[in-house]
């Protein structure tokens, strides 16, 4: 088990390196230097600026410096918010993004698994079709359409919740979490339904029923365990989806999380901040996949860690 964990960690190192290298060199080819927006500075000032930010060194040296910094969670200074480092901005936004993301994950997993199992147990009934239609709708309508619609209904028309903004209170969290959860609820319930239908037809479930075990116990003890494996595996990609979704949600609801910094940085050409956030997101997704893989190997005896 420990060896499996170590090997998985080792495998993610080249991926991480690739993310850092690709971001670094891609940004270096991007047109325009970070100080072009300034008033026409004298050549001496430009030279000093470049020197202060180590932009006068050869590229491999700069890359080495950046890599070394990243290992120490130092992503350099933000080119736009001059008083902040990229790390400060990331760690200011991250707790907010994390809170919304975790809630969304928890809610979509719980409701999604429940709905999927329910639909599988009532396969081809009106309930089943209702759940699946909702699922299709949830997947097909993107969050940047649903989020404003929720704001319109719950914020403006009904006046139950604030339309946007952030003060840390729960009222400001409900709509963003709802908007972020619905597509994942849809995806997870579809997935769970499919695998549960298969699981319910399998031999060991039939045997359990045949020896007189009740429906409820058969489902919870025997069918669910096998039926939830694909759902568990989906939680890795789901994290990536929630990360991407949070970018939209944070813009729609004016939430000061990392996603908003990222979008602002991308439109301001704040290159260090863009690089920093992309690498941070990459690490996050790698960690999520690692956790999912580990959970999977714990649950599924067929996964061997040779």
């Amino acid at each position, binding site marked *: 088990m420990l060896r499996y964990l170590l090997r998985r960690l080792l495998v993610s190192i080249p991926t991480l390196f*690739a993310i850092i290298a*690709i971001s670094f060199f891609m940004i270096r080819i991007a*047109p325009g230097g970070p100080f072009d927006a300034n008033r026409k500075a004298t050549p001496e000032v430009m030279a000093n600026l470049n020197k202060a930010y180590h932009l006068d060194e050869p590229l491999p040296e700069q890359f080495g410096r950046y890599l070394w910094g990243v290992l120490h969670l130092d992503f350099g200074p933000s080119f736009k918010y001059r008083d902040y480092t990229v790390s400060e901005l990331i760690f200011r936004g991250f707790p907010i993004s994390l809170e919304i993301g975790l809630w969304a994950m928890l809610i979509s997993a719980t409701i999604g698994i429940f709905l999927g199992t329910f639909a599988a147990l009532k396969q081809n009934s009106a309930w089943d079709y209702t759940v699946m239609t909702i699922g299709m709708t949830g997947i097909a309508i993107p969050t940047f359409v649903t989020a404003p619609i929720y704001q319109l209904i719950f914020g403006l028309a009904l006046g139950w919740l604030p339309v946007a903004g952030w003060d840390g209170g729960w009222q400001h969290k409900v709509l963003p979490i709802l908007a972020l959860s619905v597509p994942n609820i849809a995806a997870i319930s579809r997935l769970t339904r499919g695998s549960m239908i298969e699981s319910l037809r399998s031999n060991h479930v039939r045997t359990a029923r045949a020896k007189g075990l009740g429906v409820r116990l058969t489902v919870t003890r025997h069918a669910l365990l096998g039926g939830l494996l694909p759902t568990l595996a989906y939680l890795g990609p789901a994290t*990536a989806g929630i990360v991407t979704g949070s970018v939209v949600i944070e813009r729609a609801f004016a939430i000061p999380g990392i996603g908003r910094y990222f979008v602002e940085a*991308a439109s301001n050409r704040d290159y260090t901040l863009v690089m920093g956030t*992309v690498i941070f997101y990459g690490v996050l997704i790698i960690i999520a996949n690692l956790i999912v893989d580990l959970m999977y190997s714990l649950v599924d005896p067929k996964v061997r860690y040779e």
Partner: protein
Amino acid sequence: MSEAAFELIHETDHGATVAGRSKLKDGFGRMRRNKMAMVGLVVLAIIVLACAFGPFVLPFDPNQSDFDSISIPPAFAGGHIFGTDDLGRDLLARVLEGGRTSLLIGVLATIVAITIGISYGSVAGFFGGAVDTVMMRIVDVLYSLPFLFFVIMLTMVLGRGIESILIAIGALLWLTIAVIVRGQTLSLKHKEFIEAARAGGMRPFAIVRQHIIPNTIGPVIVYASLLVPEVILGESFLSYLGLGVQEPQSSWGTLIDGGAQAMDTAPWQLIVPGLFLAATLFSLNFIADGLRDAFDPKDR
């Protein structure tokens, strides 16, 4: 075998000839019985035709402001069926114009992705060995990158605009196609007709081009149909964030962004482009599902 002998095979006991059944015909036959897929096909056809020809028929120019009719709600009287925006531009005209951009990017970026994916996957699978290992390892690494963030970085490098979105999305969405085509190639490359081509002295790249790739087209078509909605969604995502299609050009994403900002006074500006986008994605998903059911032998 002579022409006559070939005819004989198709002759039944009663002497009636039976038409040959091709896989493709069989598949489309099954597809035709799938109601949801057919509804999707019809809805998509209507949207595509409307976007293609609507701008020529409509009496309104999508970029022409009419300051006498600013932000009027949808109504049949006055001709603005879907209302106007806060600059008095007809919303239907704008949605159709934006749809051209979105659909065009959807199709073109998919073609880019398919082209890269097929070439990459077939070469990796056919040459095998170290080439295959290295190429697939690269795919593994690229797979774990957060896709849309790299698209955004790539558009920063290439400059904003339709062309760079096309290239950025196409350059990053080919991975799954490459994996599928590689798998197909692996199962094809030891077949007799490939052996024959090899024995006949055909060069490896020519074999890949003329014998391998045409035989992988089936699954590629199915997957491409799944890719189109993904591309359209990605493009709208970027444009919604203000990082995609730029003024004066518009797409469904930019229209939804504008609509979201005008939502409290003119909700139709959000709802109309949102509905068009959702209907398109719905239809494409149903068509893709139908194609997969009809052509993927595993699920039958």
